[in-house]
């Protein structure tokens, strides 16, 4: 419960931030954090709760970005464009998940890895030109609506995971994650639960991609399909605490802020640091920051 109040406080603080400090760099940092929260939470649903290692999350983020951007630039209302992006991302998810989830183990992982690579290469070949907002919309470009849209998405993703974690559906997913055979024996259909988790996860990832496409003035369409997004999602989720509600939020704050700080000083060495940290977390501290915090507290209380 304490975490829930902390989350509400954090959300309120971010909502009020633009009123206190009108600094563009802070707004941009905020948007990065919100997008990271949404992307990590979306991975958390399929990877953390349903236990299926998605190695091509960029495919769904990119699909959402591409569809939203194309429609929005063509004059379709933003919310409709976002919904369409989420829908297409989900469709890609089901195309992979449908057949892959009938099999066990690695097929889903390598299938998603392959899908992301196909989309990245094809989009790079088909749309090599940089995508820029038309001049008319550029004049009206303002950071604040992007900030609040991204904040809204981040809150939506956290609330979705919080509701899911306690629901019958979410418990079913966790049962499948822990032991598929036992879950099946207890009447929890593994296939349906995995596919539902994937649908929710990919639609959120598609929305995150859509907000990214709405936020950036110009970017190469291929960039939204870059493996970077998959790395970000995994690193944030695992460093924060996979399979928890607040882990990805802590992870996103930690990751984005530290990354911005390190990137200025060390160029790309931050990736080396985060990559190593990620491996260490998987190997030694599977609960991430959340578990580290709990352990530290226990240590303090015991000695105090």
């Amino acid at each position, binding site marked *: 419960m304490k975490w829930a109040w902390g989350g509400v406080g954090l959300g309120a603080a971010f909502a009020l931030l633009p009123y206190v400090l009108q600094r563009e760099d802070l707004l941009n940092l905020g948007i990065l954090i919100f997008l990271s929260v949404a992307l990590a939470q979306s991975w958390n649903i399929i990877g953390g709760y349903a236990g299926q290692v998605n190695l091509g999350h960029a495919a769904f983020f990119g699909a959402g970005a591409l569809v939203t951007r194309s429609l929005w630039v063509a004059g379709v209302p933003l919310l409709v464009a976002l919904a369409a992006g989420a829908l297409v991302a989900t469709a890609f998810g089901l195309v992979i998940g449908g057949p892959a989830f009938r099999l066990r183990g*690695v097929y889903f992982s390598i299938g998603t890895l392959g899908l992301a690579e196909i989309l990245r290469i094809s989009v790079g070949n088909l749309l090599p030109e940089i995508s820029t907002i038309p001049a008319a919309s550029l004049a009206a470009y303002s950071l604040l609506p992007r900030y609040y849209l991204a904040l809204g998405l981040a809150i939506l993703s956290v609330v979705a995971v919080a509701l899911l974690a306690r629901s019958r559906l979410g418990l079913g997913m966790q049962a499948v994650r822990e032991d598929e055979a036992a879950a099946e024996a207890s009447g929890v259909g593994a296939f349906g639960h995995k596919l539902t988790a994937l649908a929710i996860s990919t639609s959120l990832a598609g929305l995150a991609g859509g907000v990214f496409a709405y936020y950036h003035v110009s970017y190469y369409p291929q960039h939204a399909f870059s493996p970077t997004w998959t790395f970000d999602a995994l690193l944030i989720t695992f460093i924060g605490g996979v399979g928890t509600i607040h882990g990805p939020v802590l992870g996103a704050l930690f990751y984005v802020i530290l990354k911005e700080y390190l990137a200025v000083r060390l160029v790309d060495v931050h990736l080396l640091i985060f990559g190593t940290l990620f491996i260490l977390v998987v190997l030694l501290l599977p609960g991430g920051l959340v578990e580290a915090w709990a352990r530290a507290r226990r240590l303090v209380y015991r000695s105090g």
Partner: protein
Amino acid sequence: MSAPPISARWREGVDVILAQQLVLGLLVGGLYGLAAAGLSLTFGVLRVLNIAHGELLMLGGYGSFWLFTLWGVDPFLSLLGVGPALFVLGLVLFIVLFRFVVRAHEEIRIKNSLLIGFGLTLVFHTLAIRLWTADERSVTTAYAGAAAKIAGLTIPLSRLGGLILAFAILTALHLFLTRARWGRAIRATAEDWEAAALMGIPVERTYMLAFALGTSLAGIAGGLVSVAYSISPAIGLEWTLKALIVIVLAGLGSLFGSFAGGLLLGVAEAASVVVVGGAYREAVGLLLFLVILLTRPSGLFGGR
């Protein structure tokens, strides 16, 4: 009345282009097979899927590149250094990371190996950019442009050398696995590690050997890639996917199956270049992979 002869000559031209492409496809296919054999060995024996296999290949390529540019070592000769170096790197990776992964139960084992491999790709990729910059490199020997002309087809000699060497190495490995004591231990462990342990085979050391052999194969393949093609820090994922495609095509457990699968993939890609154009070369291979993955998950050639 000159229309038919021109169209006939045109057809002949297309046939030559197709034949030339197929030859090149066959040549690169041998390297696909070599890359896949290493991955298949570790996957088949340890039941861990090392997604960083392509990054190890990339490191091997840079090893050859370094030996050539710093000391002028012939790239084919440098494999004698690169192979053992990557073998040692494999031992280190096993002792530091994968030793802990293989102790887990089958499903956790695969999941953790995927995650750790994914983290390693980030680490190696960043490291390679630091050490060698993001530029494309290749080893340009005195005989780099040499080619044999057979029946109007051009056969680059360094690529032919790569293909022959790939086949020779797989043959040697096959002999090792079937004749040598440790080779048999590897096969026994792959079949049933518990029974192997009961027969007095030191399972963990066998795992270590198989893993290091796999990374060594990746390194040698990388060395061959750097002579006949080019390397850059970004090629890792591409080669991992090639190896995975081949494994899906050929199934696990047979070195020559991997080799044949590699040749098949090379030829299929080459044919697709002629039919749909070079821009989709990667996408066609990957699409083939997804279709097979989703329809015939045990591989076209049967097997496990």
